[in-house]
């Protein structure tokens, strides 16, 4: 069998997806150096076309589009990753407890999970941000709140299967306590589906964040890709690039994450991929 690294990094999807993500990540990290100054600052006259000044031109108020994209990468990725990490943490907790203890605890936790799943997630996110007032933490909370149920279900399913295995029984017989068994024996063996689900959720989180910003519900005074599309949408016919460039960036980023996520899934479950 080829090693995990060989399978994963030998995959064309991974090479393509990771290259783009690395590129975006460099912009996100070094935005203050690559595009110095406030991305909201008016630098020149509005509607300068791409490649005719400031790299990608200026928007309706004369703001540097390239600077917006670089700083937007920072905000969008930060919010999406943080939201997903929060969702993964909470979802794992709920799923692990439900799967490990079973019975009434499982039934209650899973009914709650289903309750959250039945609410249309984007509307729910809008309501949450509206209630909490738009800000970075409230967008993160909204993303986490609408994305934890799938994680909880995946982790619960894995825990249910892993806790039957003989090495877990051996730990019970050795006298290990429940919490240690869960943390040391069970959870490390549920990691691969968790990682795959979470990586795909980052893509969804980017879309949610962008959609919220588009509607003007994003954090104020934070430049993000969704905000750029939102502010450019009135000028779609006169200045198509204002919407198209951030739109394509979102599209390619989300697609890259999905490609890497799927390749990750195949590399972690080699037998499934062979079918």
């Amino acid at each position: 069998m080829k090693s995990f690294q060989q399978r994963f990094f030998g995959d064309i999807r991974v090479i393509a997806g990771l290259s783009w993500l690395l590129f975006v990540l460099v912009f996100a990290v070094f935005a203050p150096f690559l595009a110095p100054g406030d991305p909201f600052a008016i630098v020149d006259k509005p509607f300068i076309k791409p490649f005719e000044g400031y790299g990608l031109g200026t928007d309706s108020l004369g703001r540097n589009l390239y600077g917006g994209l670089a700083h937007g990468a920072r905000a969008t990725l930060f919010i999406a990753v943080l939201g997903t990490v929060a969702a993964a943490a909470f979802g794992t907790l709920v799923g692990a407890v439900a799967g490990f203890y079973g019975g009434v605890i499982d039934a209650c936790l899973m009914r709650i999970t289903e309750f959250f799943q039945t609410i249309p997630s984007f509307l729910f996110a809008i309501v949450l941000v509206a209630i909490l007032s738009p800000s970075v933490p409230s967008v993160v909370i909204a993303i986490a709140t609408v994305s934890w149920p799938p994680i909880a279900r995946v982790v619960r399913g894995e825990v249910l299967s892993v806790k039957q295995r003989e090495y877990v029984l051996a730990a019970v017989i050795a006298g290990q306590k429940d919490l240690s068994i869960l943390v040391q024996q069970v959870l490390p063996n549920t990691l691969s589906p968790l990682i795959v689900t979470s990586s795909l959720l980052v893509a969804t989180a980017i879309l949610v964040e962008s959609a919220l910003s588009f509607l003007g519900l994003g954090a104020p005074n934070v430049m993000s890709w969704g905000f750029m599309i939102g502010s450019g949408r009135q000028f779609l016919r006169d200045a198509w690039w204002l919407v198209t460039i951030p739109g394509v960036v979102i599209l390619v980023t989300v697609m890259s994450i999905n490609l890497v996520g799927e390749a990750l899934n195949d590399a972690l479950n080699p037998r499934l991929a062979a079918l």
Partner: protein
Amino acid sequence: MTTPAPVPALVIEGLTVALPSWSDRRHAVEDLTLEIARNEILCVVGESGSGKSVMAKSILRLLPGPHVRVTGGRILFQGNDILALNDSAMRALRGSAISMIFQEPMTALNPLMTVGRQTDEVFDVHTELDATARRQRVMALFEDVQLPEPERLYNSYPHELSGGQRQRVMIAMALALEPALIIADEPTTALDVTTQAQILRLLKDLQRRHGTAVLFITHDFGVVSEIADRVAVMRQGKLVEVGTVEGVLKSPQADYTRALVDAVPSLIPRHVATAAAPDPILQVDGLSKTYGGRSGLFGMRGRAVRAVDQITLEVGRGRSLAVVGESGSGKSTLARCIIGLETADVGSVRLDGQTISGLSRAEMRPLRQHIQMVFQDPFASLNPRHKVGDIIALGPVIQGVAKSAAWEEARNLLRLVGLQPEAVDRYPHEFSGGQRQRIGIARALAVKPKLIIADEPVSALDVSVQKQVLELLDDLRLKLGLSMLFITHDLRVAAHVCEDVVVMSNGVIVERGPTAEIFASPKHQYTKALLDAVPGKSWLGGARGATADFSISPAVAN
């Protein structure tokens, strides 16, 4: 009847099957030449990884390509080279001229289709028969393989059938078009002993009546002695020896064959000097456990199953007691109730005079060091993400031993079970099944228990590895003065390691006593059936019986 017909049904000439570049050897099968006559059963014997299944799959061209592929040789079926056929000619051949019986009938049958419909499909695809004629043929087949109530079974789904019945359906499907060759890949390995005996008898009988050639793959020489006309022994992709069943079993030529034959545990029970009955270390009194029957959240009511019913037994200090029974007899549930993985409904368990049933997990914790368990599946019983040292040291660390001391002890234990002490730093996937089972034994010994419960510890292992692990267990038991409760479905294994035996059926003990006594004169009908069903009974009891006494270690006598 055993004289081979002049034109062989199948000739394999210099077959070589390549493995992918990253595997540990280059060829799954290497330059293999073999011949199967019409109307003969050829058993191919070998340990797991010997390439016997790959060889069988290459005959039907079912190899998992593109990396595993035939790189040399010819397979001549009735004079034609199978490897040169195009795909449609191959499809016509599969099922009608060559058919296959798989190991696990549950996964080989489609769970969403009635078994009658699935058998019918064979005729539908390969013949021009109309619906009524097909149904008649299916019924005739079901009667042929001795399925009870064929009419009712026709409309049953695979899950409604027992394991033996499912395998009979598989055999019916394999026989449907009167093939010239049947390939059976470990068809009885997943079945109970008594069912295995019935299926073997049925296969042999059908083979004789239809004059089919059968290629029978197995790892068990007991099965070979029951069914084979000729035997081929494979090791690491190469043919070691081929000959008639009498020749190979009585006077094996190759050392490897001799080792395999000798590894089959004999049915001769060990001697014990039953001078004074030792005081009991484990006393189980009136233990019962019922599954199901309670109402669920939405008032669903499951059928109650009495898995364990009023079991009373004792294990003497320093003695070994076998609990023998088929799957579903409740023997594993009994083990789990004793060690506290399940809570018994009624009854008590006393270990060294101290009651351990009904204790909470916390109350039980200090007592864990007295009772430990060895599990069945060497691949599921070790956490793949922990180092071997951590796995073995877990118990002692919980009991309060310092980690460095526990690791040092783990090294000693690994040496004791016949592994390198450096193994502590490695992960379970780096070891073979037999080595893993040794690690499992080291883990059980780490807390210096008084009693070990072994739940089918060798049933997942090859026969030759089985022998080593059984000898290790036996040796350690005598050296460390352990007592053992040994759960098994295999009477041969029970005979090898246990002085006393209880036979369980449907949750109750039907017979108990010293192993020698029970094997010599079984009283209960079920015990007799179990003993009769042991594969290779006549061979084990007869020719090999005389030599088997050597395996009894003198240390048992005291």
